[in-house]
């Protein structure tokens, strides 16, 4: 079972890689046919023999007129300003209130990144609690992210849990990216400092009703490779969350939303919860804001 779960993340990302590379092995789509070049406009290929290109020169022309030091500094700046820059983003996907007859709850989920096109530092955080003071669960992840295909990046790093229950530290191996049909996908496998293995798969989709009104279905599935009674988890699928949020982009960076969130414990984890007198499912109205800068 543990091996199976560990295989999930690579499997999911492998699908996208395969989709991109598939054409290379398909054998049905050769190099462009000559007729596609519309020969009446593009003249025929050059007559043989065709000259070879010269080797790249070893000198730099401007150093004939300007000091090599000044040119080296300008070249470094040139590289930085032509593809060598860094960027960043702080994204709060959900920051919401979950009104409840007892105590109102809250939840958040967000991600920040900094770096270049390929290599990035990523911070993720999510959690939920009640306004009467009890933080039920919370976590922070610090990851190195590397773009590996046109749409996906691999991520590795650490996760720290906080909140009620035992505090755990995990090693994280995950992926994140954009699947065909514009589905945002994210998956992580976790190895805790107690040796427990678990995994999480998330997906979301933006259904653009108008330029500013967007309906976002979002789902999350959690799995555990073993019974972890301290965390109330049993081996197998442990719980799922489905959300449907309707947001209005006042600006692209700031969108209040209203929605519903449905959570359900699954399998033997649900049995454990029932035995403990807890609810196994819950549906809540959510009010919040999605913001980034």
């Amino acid at each position, binding site marked *: 079972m543990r091996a199976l779960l560990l295989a999930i993340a690579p499997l999911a990302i492998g699908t996208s890689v395969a989709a991109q590379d598939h054409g290379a092995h398909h054998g049905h789509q*050769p190099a462009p046919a000559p007729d596609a070049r519309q020969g009446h406009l593009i003249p025929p290929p*050059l007559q043989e023999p065709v000259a070879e290109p010269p080797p790249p020169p070893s000198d730099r*022309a401007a150093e004939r007129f*300007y000091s090599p030091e000044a040119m080296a500094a300008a070249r470094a*700046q040139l590289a930085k300003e032509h593809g060598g820059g860094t960027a960043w983003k702080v994204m709060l996907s959900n920051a919401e209130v979950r009104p409840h007859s007892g105590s109102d709850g809250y939840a958040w989920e967000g991600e920040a990144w900094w770096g270049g096109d390929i290599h990035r530092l990523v911070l993720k955080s999510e959690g939920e609690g009640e306004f009467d003071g009890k933080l039920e669960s919370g976590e922070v992840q610090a990851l190195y992210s590397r773009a590996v295909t046109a749409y996906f990046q691999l991520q590795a790093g650490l996760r720290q849990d906080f909140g009620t229950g035992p505090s755990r530290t995990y090693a994280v191996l995950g992926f994140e990216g954009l699947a065909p049909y514009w589905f945002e996908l994210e998956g992580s496998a976790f190895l805790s400092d107690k040796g427990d293995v678990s995994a999480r798969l998330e997906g979301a989709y933006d259904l653009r009703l108008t330029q500013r009104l967007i309906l976002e279905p979002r789902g999350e599935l959690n799995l555990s490779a073993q019974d972890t009674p301290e965390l109330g988890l049993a081996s197998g699928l442990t719980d799922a969350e489905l959300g449907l949020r309707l947001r209005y982009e006042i600006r692209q960076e700031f969108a209040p939303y209203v929605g519903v969130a449905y959570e359900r414990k699954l399998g033997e984890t649900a049995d454990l919860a029932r035995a403990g007198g807890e609810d196994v499912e819950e549906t809540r109205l959510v009010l919040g804001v999605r913001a980034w800068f």
Partner: protein
Amino acid sequence: MNRLVPPRLHRRQLLRGVSALGGAGALNAFLPTWAQSGTPGLAATLPTVSGDHIALRVGHTPITVDGRRGHAVTVNGTVPGPLVRLKEGQSVRLAVTNDLDEDTSIHWHGLLLPFQMDGVPGVSFPGIKPKETFIYEFKVRQAGTYWYHSHSGLQEQMGHYGPIVIDPVGEDPVQFDREHVVVLSDYSFMHPHEIFRKLKAQAGYFNRQKQTVAGLLKGEDQPLKDRKEWAAMRMDPTDILDVTGSTYTFLINGHGPKDNWTGLFKPGERVRLRFVNAGAMTIFNVRIPGLKLSVVQADGQNVQPVEVEEFQISPAETYDVVVQPTEDRAYTLVAEAADRSGMGRATLAPRLGMTAEVPPLRKRPLLNMRDMGMDHSAMMGMGGMEMDHSAMSMRDPRNAPQVKMGPGVQMISPMPADRTGDPGQGLEDVGHKVLVYTDLVALDPNPDPRPPSRELEIHLTGNMERFMWAFDGVSFSHLKDPIPFRFNERVRVVLVNDSMMAHPIHLHGHFFEVVNGHPGRHPRKHTVNVLPGGRVAFDLTADEPGDWAFHCHLLYHMHAGMFNVVTVRPLDGGAA
């Protein structure tokens, strides 16, 4: 025209106002700067500098666009900078002083000159440090309409550009009674660094014309089947321009649409309009409803006159057109952004204060299979081809063996078509004659009749989702080698667009001949727009020794890495 100006003269005295530029300089009175630019409804506008010694200062200036205050980086305090008017054959000394607290530069776009005077920091010279003056000095070897702009950081977006007009030494083959320079550009109140970061953070950020469910229900845009097919490929058919009218105000001679720059004419006059697209990211569609446009020059080089009603002009291109309004009425000059997210608007009129109807923005076009590098005819040949199949072949490395495949390469055009006969995105069905590259025929025979001795293919690659752009899959910051040429060799360069955006590609220091079916009279250009999924061939005689920049002239594509250096050796030319 060429007046000797002492180099230390106060700049106000240098700014010669020319409200009607032609007619042997009929209105050559000295006007103060404030009267010439940024004032609503004024006749024309651009201060002019000329002579053998010209002083230019780059600095920060507050400007007003359509009544809103903004900040600009300017040359001599105005947006656009002054018109630099030169004479073919003269020598010129341009002293550029940097009043900024960062480096700056001026690149003389389209001018043939020694490479060390080309003005690209890190390639041709070290740049101009704050508070320093750099003196550019070169002989003017050509005539025509050109322009200049910063090649440092993103200053060009902030207003650091201006026009150049070079009068021919002999008789001008273009007959006209009056001329106006028309500089098109795009201005944002958002800082360019922030624009770039937004694009990295969310590539579709500035596109507020996406397809919606509401549109689907109203029967607009793509039908559901097509939407699903495009979604399967993670391609957005509304992604025409990266930065749009959602943040840009489109300027004509520094005037917003409400400012309404007005150029004067007398009915019956032949009016020469010298268009320069100094926009950072905007491809414009230009028309003057009611007037035929006779295109007489492209990128400063004369072409056989061709009459059109509209033309597309991509960043860095120039077109000279002659119009002959005969009625005593105003005409609206429309420069519509290619994605129809906004327009620049100006007026040609017999008298100040007159206006004409401003046509509404036309419907935003959608990308199609041809933009994906899938030729129509080839598509039909495949009949009922399944879309998931084509989605896979959209990134077949065998179609571009030289491209380094990686996260920065979203697609490889499977069947790139020659699109020099296409009018540009969204202009296929406008119901009137639109200029296409195949209409351009050089007025003079091409100077080098030799056939190319070799062919060089360069792929324009990118990933619209990551906002990564490069040549052959490698951004400049990761490049080891330049693109080498032997002095005086003749090479056919083929540009293949492996992306769904147009890329206006500019080679510094040279003209090349766009291979468009008029051998011997191919149009000579410095910038050629390669339509999405298309290919363009040009023949180049590498007769200017040195190191030269070669890049996409969409500013943020260049900033993302779509840039390289072209070398021409030996440096002493034929002497070796």
